[in-house]
């Protein structure tokens, strides 16, 4: 099979998704290829933290400026996946006052608004904070649902199977003299190979960017650092809580819907695929975060996971936290003499739109065309409509329940059958995992133990399962879930785990199913 397009995007994370949307808006044809599912790398394995930029003001004011600018844009164009929580940088007695003053000063320089709170004021806002805090600084941080953000960009950009090719491996970049003329790819599930001719190729493969560059005979000084995160079964703060000290491990707790996410560690790694969270990381994160929020000490944790950050190495080298968190746009024409190849890497979730804009600007420049970017002024449709708050949602649920209509499929996150059917209706099926990411299904205390079976049952009932081997899907999901829950199995979480084993091994007998 041979296809032809103007731009091939490699990578289905938020960067690739943002670029796809931007290209679509500017009327440029593209095909996006992703070897896994969407949001498979760092885009799906982060805190869900909407940076205000405050964290970077001291070390990297440039990145901080980008963050605050994009923070404001996203709050306007994608309110449906953002919770505008605000954030607090809290100081403990052992923290250096000098850093706090420097932090305030640099926030002012970058024009990030701050408000200083006394310990009393901070505890009034966040009663779970340690009574030992010596003060707190409020900043415009927020929480963001990265999956919804990726899917919303993709859905506005193109269609599955046409412009958006997931589970597609890029095997070779076809080069002719100083250009890449096309991409040799194959469908990972069927093995079917195909080629796509392209005017431009964009490497938006995140932590995998160096591997993609190597297909063009190039190499990138990319450092990959693993960050592990831990999810508690309830939300311990209204706001994002940071430690007011130089960036270090275990210094942030992000509220995310009904849970809190503790982050993070930073360990250089060569491993990109099978990331595991070590027991030592789990206890470290709990110890550090509970200094700010002591009730985390005895909390129940429902999942641990790790993501990989791609960090572009400066010449100085050194600690990976010292590397720039800003993004890097590489025009390989200037760097390596490959005319139509561009790499975009690094950056933050919050700056994805700007990264896409710069990338597409560069393409337009190379095309010799002037088409203005509109992504910063066009709302992401899907994420402006469905943006009703949790309170509104629960009120609606109460009314449904009174009418006897509400069938709650996910007991942890209160997702009803109606809501799920609506979510599934317009969806071409891309496996269980992707469906779970589109809803809160599977993100609550039981981590999908009940609702994954119910979801498959509903797919069959709706006639959307096709020839899918549901039990293999279910086993695959439980196996992936296992990687996340295994590091946190003690106390009540272990009790629940044994119940889950009772269901899948005892009642369904899936361990013996072929």
């Amino acid at each position, binding site marked *: 099979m041979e296809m032809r397009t103007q731009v091939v995007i490699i990578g289905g994370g938020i960067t690739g998704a943002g670029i796809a949307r931007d290209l679509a808006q500017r009327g440029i044809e593209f095909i996006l290829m992703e070897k896994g599912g969407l949001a498979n790398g760092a885009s799906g394995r982060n805190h869900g933290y909407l940076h205000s930029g405050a964290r970077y003001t001291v070390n990297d004011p440039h990145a901080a400026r980008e963050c605050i600018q994009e923070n404001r844009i996203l709050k306007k164009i994608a309110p449906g996946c953002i919770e505008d929580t605000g954030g607090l940088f809290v100081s403990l007695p052992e923290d250096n006052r000098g850093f706090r003053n420097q932090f305030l000063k640099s926030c002012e320089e970058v024009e990030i608004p701050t408000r200083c709170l006394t310990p009393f004021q901070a505890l009034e806002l966040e009663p779970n904070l340690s009574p030992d805090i010596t003060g707190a600084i409020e900043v415009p941080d927020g929480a963001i649902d990265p999956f919804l953000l990726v899917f919303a960009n993709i859905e506005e950009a193109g269609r599955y199977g046409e412009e958006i090719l997931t589970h597609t491996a890029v095997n070779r970049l076809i080069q002719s003299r100083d250009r890449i003329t096309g991409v040799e790819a194959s469908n990972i599930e069927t093995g079917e190979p195909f080629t796509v001719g392209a005017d431009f190729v964009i490497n938006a493969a995140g932590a995998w960017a160096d591997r993609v560059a190597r297909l063009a005979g190039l190499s990138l000084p990319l450092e990959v650092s693993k960050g592990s995160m831990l999810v508690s079964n309830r939300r311990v703060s209204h706001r994002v809580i940071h430690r007011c000290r130089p960036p270090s491990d275990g210094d942030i707790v992000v509220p995310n819907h009904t849970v809190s996410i503790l982050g993070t560690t930073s360990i250089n790694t060569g491993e990109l695929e099978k990331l595991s969270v070590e027991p030592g990381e789990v206890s470290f994160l709990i110890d550090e975060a509970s200094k700010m929020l002591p009730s985390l000490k005895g909390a129940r944790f429902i999942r641990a996971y790790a993501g990989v950050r791609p960090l572009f190495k400066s010449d100085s080298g050194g600690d990976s936290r010292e590397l720039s968190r800003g993004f890097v746009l590489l025009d390989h024409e200037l760097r390596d003499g490959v005319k139509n190849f561009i790499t975009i890497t690094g950056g933050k979730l919050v700056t994805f739109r700007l990264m896409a804009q710069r990338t597409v600007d560069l393409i337009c420049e190379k095309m010799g065309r002037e088409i203005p970017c509109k992504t910063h002024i066009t709302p992401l449709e899907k994420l402006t409509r469905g943006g009703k708050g949790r309170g509104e949602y629960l009120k609606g649920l109460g009314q449904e329940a009174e009418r006897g209509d509400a069938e709650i499929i996910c007991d942890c996150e209160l997702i009803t059958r109606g809501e799920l059917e609506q979510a599934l209706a317009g969806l071409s099926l891309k496996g269980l995992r992707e469906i779970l990411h589109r809803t809160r299904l599977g993100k609550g205390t039981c981590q999908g133990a009940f609702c994954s079976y119910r979801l498959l049952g509903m797919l*069959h009932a709706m006639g959307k399962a096709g020839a899918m081997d549901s039990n293999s899907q279910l*086993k695959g999901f439980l*196996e992936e879930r296992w990687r996340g829950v295994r590091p946190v199995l003690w106390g009540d979480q272990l009790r629940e785990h*044994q*119940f889950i084993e009772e269901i899948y091994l005892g009642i369904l007998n899936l361990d013996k199913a072929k």
Partner: protein
Amino acid sequence: MMHYDVIVIGMGLAGLMAAKTAAEGGKSVLLLGKGVGRAHMHTGCIDLLGYYPSGSSVSVENPFEFIGRLIEERPNHPYARVGIPDIRMALTSFLGLFDGQDYTYFSQGKKNTVTLTPAGCTRTTYLLPSTMAWGGIEDERDVLIVGFDGLKDFYSAYMAQNLNSLGKEGRLSFKARPISLPLSKFSARKTAPALVLARFFEEEGFRDRIGEAVRAELREEERVAFPAVLGVERSGKVRKELEEKLGTTVFEIPTLPPSVPGYRLFQAFKRHLQRNGVTVVMGFAVTEALLRNGTCSGVTVTCPPLQRTYSAEMFILATGSFFGGGLEAKGDRAVEPIFGLPVHQPASRDTWFGDRFFSDDPHPIAEFGVLVDERLNPIDEEGRAVVRNLHVAGSILSGSDPLREKSGGGIALSTGYKAGKGEFH
């Protein structure tokens, strides 16, 4: 202080069986439990031994033959502590609960039965409630599977598709066809959990309307499968009437928990125990044992503001594994919280689990538990008795992997039986 001959702690199958056996032995018995017990969380079938060794993918045809092997090869397994004669006695005693009733339990002689799961795969068990009698895979008659829109723990289309693909692989010789009835057409409710639906089936009018609707959908099928919601107290009658109405055999397939057949099983035990003078106190957690010189004199139950102590000559601990609360996992150590019994476990938390969820090798944690001698008295790692007048039964015992072996029901009944017989030093 109320005084009894025997206090049994735990409302699961092991505790129920222990209380039954002790009461039938003429003892005054108090049964204490903090909740309704594990029976409600399972299928309602009694698994004896489905796979041996536990990682095997071929199921056991004759469980007693393999229990014999297991006893020789694994002397610390609970079955080895009980022995085959008492396992048989325990099953006979269990079947006695249903004497003269139209809802009863049966096996295919000495053989296991391969039956159906709500995921449309097969599972191996030993004793089945009579409502599940015609659900074996050896039966070659086609099945109409009836589901309900509004019952979220059972999906007929999901099951049928999987069963039919097993059929294509030659592992079954019948075809399955799904239908799903909207609950709202038959009742005032659009949705109902399994137990509520089961109560609807006790009403003749509801049953008739369902019967009519299913008959209208029947084609060639000679068997009709329902989720396990065919009545609560009168399931035998409910099924029989449906069979007459449909002119087919009717059987039940388990749902996700809570389980209606498990509830029926629990109620059968509870009725029997109360008739036999057992005091059943449910909803109170035992928080402390009064121990002195290796002997227990009483236990304290707490439900604030109430706190109360009961005394007895002997005690039976059947509080379950982690799920039941019989074992608790602190950050890096598993403990038995009431008596502080030694818990058999590896030294480090790093080795509690295997790398894969579905693994042929058992997760080491499955075998954690209390060590006992051949009388089911708790012992420490050196084999010394810990509490002299205490017996331990059920999944709190170490040495087995009941979920992968499919042996949980048999272990619970047989160790409960043996503990209830009460052989002490």
